[in-house]
């Protein structure tokens, strides 16, 4: 692997054991929408990122980051 970035390699590769960020899970929703969620352990979670190229999806409050997601 070859990195070509302005960020120094020691910063890119720095692993901070003290604060592990929460695990994110990718979920495919019907209608071609994919979201990243932060699982709450009960099958759902909080949406953290919307993976879509359709600008309309970003106007829908159901998929906006911070919304609760239930299966």
């Amino acid at each position, binding site marked *: *692997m*070859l*990195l*070509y*970035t*302005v*960020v*120094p*390699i020691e910063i*890119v*590769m*720095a*692993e*901070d054991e003290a604060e*592990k*960020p929460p695990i994110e899970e990718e979920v495919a*929703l*019907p*209608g*071609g929408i*994919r979201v990243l969620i932060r699982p709450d352990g009960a099958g759902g979670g909080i949406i953290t990122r919307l*993976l*879509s*190229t*359709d*600008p*309309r999806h970003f*106007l*829908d*409050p*159901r998929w906006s980051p911070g919304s*609760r*997601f*239930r*299966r």
Partner: protein
Amino acid sequence: MMRLETPFEEPLPDAEPPAPGRFNLRRARMALRSLRQLGQMSPPETPVSPIHCLTIVGQIEGHLVLPPKNKTTKYEHIIPQLVAVEQNPHIKGLLVILNTVGGDVEAGLAIAEMIDSLSKPTVSLVLGGGHSIGGPVAVAADYSFIAETATMTIHPLRLAGTLIGVPQTYEYLEKMQDRVIKFVTQHAKITEEKFRELMFRTGDLVRDLGTVLVGADAVACGLIDEVGGLSQAVRKLEAMIAARSSGSAS
């Protein structure tokens, strides 16, 4: 007497498919609930957008999963989206928004090649930064914009870690670098001599060889087509879509 009921106890089926027929009822119910509870109108029903938007932020992540502190754009997310844009007949053009610090060479070049080979009009807009491997991605679009305050850093490729065979390593690095230089000079107006000069310039960067181009500088050297923002980028894309549809109709 009419009594308004607040359906607090009725949860909305968030993850259900937007089945035709049911979708409108559900949407209407949701709008009503949001109006009652929060006094807020839900966003208006928008028409299908012929322009799709691809955002590339943070590190472009490729073969290696980067430590979780990095904000990354993963190429396994981007590539299928580009395939969908190519295949969907309702999508007429693609706007690529970049604010990236660079990343994996092969992932960056893969995305750049995908954008370049897309049959639909593409416009890129560099906001904030389009550094290192962000350069090839920006110039891969049919037309490129850079915000006045955005910057692009051009610098040589570096290898981290232990070097075993120095001449071989140098040759390998040179080969990888040529891939980037070739792609950029084939897709932008900048000449190879000028790009190499910017890449190996001394005295501009503290930690490295190279150059930082701010907004208009990137246009002056021929790397980017025009200084502009969102409205210019969308206008340009709409004009390209219109030109293409009138061209195919005649």
